[in-house]
């Protein structure tokens, strides 16, 4: 069941678990999201370690990272960069913005104006930036880890469904349990650990992992299962809009990465089930605006309604 090559993700996961205490599932999902070449949306209240997770991901994966605090007066140029006139050479030159990095932490992404949001989300989709007539490719790998606070509504711009679709997964961390919270209280800021830790991976290593995830086998029976899951969301009366084919593709990609993290070279229905919630929940708008706490139960209800193939 284990892949023949030594699994470099085990070290990375162990390091991440050391920094983010008591959240192995969220940490695995975050890593799987990046390996599946997807962008990650972390939705949670402040202070549970969203930024720490992003920071730790960048460090452990050996990636260059930038952080942008989104505010309502943030302009697209503040992220992408700006053409400035170079008097000495008598021409415009492009000064790259913070987006030209391997991992961008977009903190409180819903605070920025829709214009700025869409500039970022466009870059996420295209993995390139066009300024004036020149197109600049973004580094490879390129990840966006965005955070938003779901409870603060004043002065925020909710991401529309089409923009949410750009994020492969949406996860939340939640409060730590008692034991881990005590450990946090005792040991202080976990980010202090980062400088002393050696990166478990490098950008090349991340690219290799992404390629390896592509090679994880997906059997026809499993595709049937994914299709049945996606189709079942379209037939529900409590869902305004079912999952799109793009969401189905994302589900397969995420399940591949999840299987790779588990050290398998084939995808199981369990892998699909593990990533289904984070991949699907932010893409399913429910009728009557229902959401929130019972969303997890709602998602598992969908899973329960579709038999796994035998």
């Amino acid at each position, binding site marked *: *069941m284990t892949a023949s090559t030594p699994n470099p993700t085990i070290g990375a996961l162990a390091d991440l678990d050391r920094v983010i205490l008591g959240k192995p599932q969220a940490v695995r999902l975050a890593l799987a999201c990046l390996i599946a070449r997807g962008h990650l949306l972390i939705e949670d209240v402040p202070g549970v370690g969203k930024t720490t997770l992003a920071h730790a991901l960048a460090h452990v994966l050996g990636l260059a990272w930038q952080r942008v605090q989104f505010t309502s007066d943030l302009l697209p140029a503040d992220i992408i960069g700006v053409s400035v006139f170079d008097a000495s050479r008598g021409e415009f030159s492009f000064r790259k913005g913070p987006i030209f990095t391997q991992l961008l932490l977009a903190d409180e992404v819903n605070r920025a104006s829709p214009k700025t949001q869409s500039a970022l989300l466009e870059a996420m989709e295209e993995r390139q930036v066009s300024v004036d007539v020149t197109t600049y490719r973004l580094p490879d790998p390129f990840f966006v880890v965005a955070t938003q606070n779901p409870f603060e509504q004043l002065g925020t711009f909710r991401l529309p469904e089409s923009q949410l679709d750009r994020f492969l997964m949406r996860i939340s961390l939640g409060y730590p349990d008692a034991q881990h919270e005590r450990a946090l209280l005792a040991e202080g800021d976990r980010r202090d650990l980062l400088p002393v830790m050696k990166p478990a991976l490098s950008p090349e290593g991340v690219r290799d992992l992404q390629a390896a995830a592509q090679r994880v*086998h997906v*059997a026809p*029976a*499993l595709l049937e299962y994914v299709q049945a899951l996606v189709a079942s969301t*379209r*037939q*529900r*009366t409590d*869902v*305004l*809009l*079912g999952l799109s084919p793009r969401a189905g593709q994302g589900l397969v990609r995420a399940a591949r990465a999840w299987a790779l993290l588990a050290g398998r070279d*084939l*995808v*199981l*229905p*369990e892998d699909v*089930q593990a990533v289904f919630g984070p991949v699907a929940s932010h893409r399913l708008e429910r009728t009557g605006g229902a959401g929130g706490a019972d969303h997890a139960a709602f998602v598992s209800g969908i*899973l*329960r*309604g*579709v*038999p*796994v*193939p*035998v």
Partner: protein
Amino acid sequence: MIAAARPHVAATLVFAASVLLVLFEAPLWCTAVALGCAAWRIAVSVGWLNPPRAGSWRRLVFVTLTVACVLAVLANFRTLNGLSAGTALLVLMGALKLLESRSRRDDGIVIGVALFMLLAAVLGDQSLLRVPLYLLTVWGACAAIAIIAHPGDALPTRAALRLSARALAMAAPLAAACFLLFPRVSGQFWALQRGQQATTGLSDVMAPGAIGELASEYDPAFRVRFEGSPPPRETLYFRGVVLNSFDGFTWRRARSHTWNPPPLEMLGAPVRYRVTLEPSYRPWLFALDTVARSPRRNVFLAHDRQLTAMDDIDTVTSYDAESYLRTRSTGKLSVAGHRYETRIEGEGNPRTRALALSLRAQSGSDAEYAQRVLQWFQEQRLEYTLDPGPTSVDSVDSTLFDSKRGFCAHFASAYATLMRMADVPAHVVTGYLGGEWNPAGGYLIVRQSDAHAWTEVWLDGHGWTRIDPTSVVEPERLQRGLYDLMPQSMGATAQVLRSAWISRIAHVWDSANQWWQERVVEFNARAQLSFLRNLGIDSPGWQHLGWGFAIALLTWIGWVSLTLRRSVARQRPDRIARAWLAATRKLARVAPARAADEGPIAFARRIGAARPDLAPAVSDVAERYVRLRFGPSSSAPEVLELERAVRRLAA
């Protein structure tokens, strides 16, 4: 459009289409109300209008509206019974349902109402022209049902139409079996009460100029299909109403005059034919010359051989008739008969009376007198015209001596009057003469414009003898239709319809209609039995029909279930799946059974936790299964290994 609007719109459109189908059954205001409600419903569904707010007042409004509608229908029809009133009620109730429908179930009810209205439309009009409309509506209704039944509005319209077309095609054999074999009740159990309709065709009153009004009507009165070759055209006198009472101006049918006619001798071979009568909303049936017997139940054959039905003919009606073109009656007319058939009320038409007396005095016998009068008609050079102008109170005098112009009704009236004035029994017969041969269908179309009037005169030794005074005034009338004689009398429509190639198309269409009428609409219990006879059953009966229908039904059910099974049924589990299912069944004895959504590894882990002793074996089976089912390839030995591992589990 709002995502969930499509099922509502589909149901509403089907309803609106059905309302249009019963356009002529329901009163116009019902149709207007229903279409208004449908438009409102669509506007609300697609979001142009706001839906009504819920509230207790709404219930009150609906109850009020319902009561108002029922009362309105009652006021309109004076009853809630019968096809028209029932249809009106159905249209209104469906419209009200649209106002309050919200859920999928409501849409289903609306379509149900629409299908009931379709049934009403079929009861009201079974013509071939309507068939495509009915089929389209059924198709649309089925597609709408498919759209409604599909959860989450996921079925595209095109796919729904395809699906319903396929379903209808599959249902077609069953419909054919029901049509051919389902035992039928004789008689029309659906013969519901109808509203009053406009009447057309001949009446039982003939004032001068009466039949001329029909000349411009191109509508068919009836169609005749002869057994064998048709008789010559000049003998095609279809008798209708016999007018035996004259007041000097108008000929009428007096119902009270009956007497025993002298015995009749039928000569020559009978002509057998089938008449398909268009609705005339009058009770008369038409037959050639002397009909042998009443052609169907509830049709009365009078002493003067007039056929009268119990009820007005308000649907297309067919009957088989047998007529003799030549008869003889050697007996004497009874005294009462002679009195009635020579009576003229009043002392009008003095010039005619004088003529009658002088001509009779010159003749040796009644037969000679009849011949002499005909000759007189010829000598007078009377003019045959559809527009003879008004006549005076002494209508016969006016025709014969003043205007010298007239139409068949004038001449028949004048001739019969001349006979009666000379004490020769005579009466006027109205009916149809000739007709148009449809070469495409091999039958005769008799139109309203073929209406004609002639006389019958009692001649001792011969009995009633047909004498057509028009034939001496305008001999061509016997050979040719009115339109050939007087093209200017044709209406614009008739002129177009009679142009060469259109008339050929019209003939084909008419014969298709006739086929539809004879073979489909009138396919009754007798036709069913003769169908069985054609299948080779010697003495068919109800039992044969019942058995035939049962066999057809079972065959159809078998065929449909096989077809559906092939397209719907899941594939049979293969060896890998069977092995895994066997393992899960076995393990269900030690722990709760595998849920449908439980993956193999999760299941193995659960069993392992419950029974640590089984853990290695279960995990081995699960991993083998997973590798075969979800891995890149599977080989026969590996499958065998899995099956063996599953068997070991049992041990």
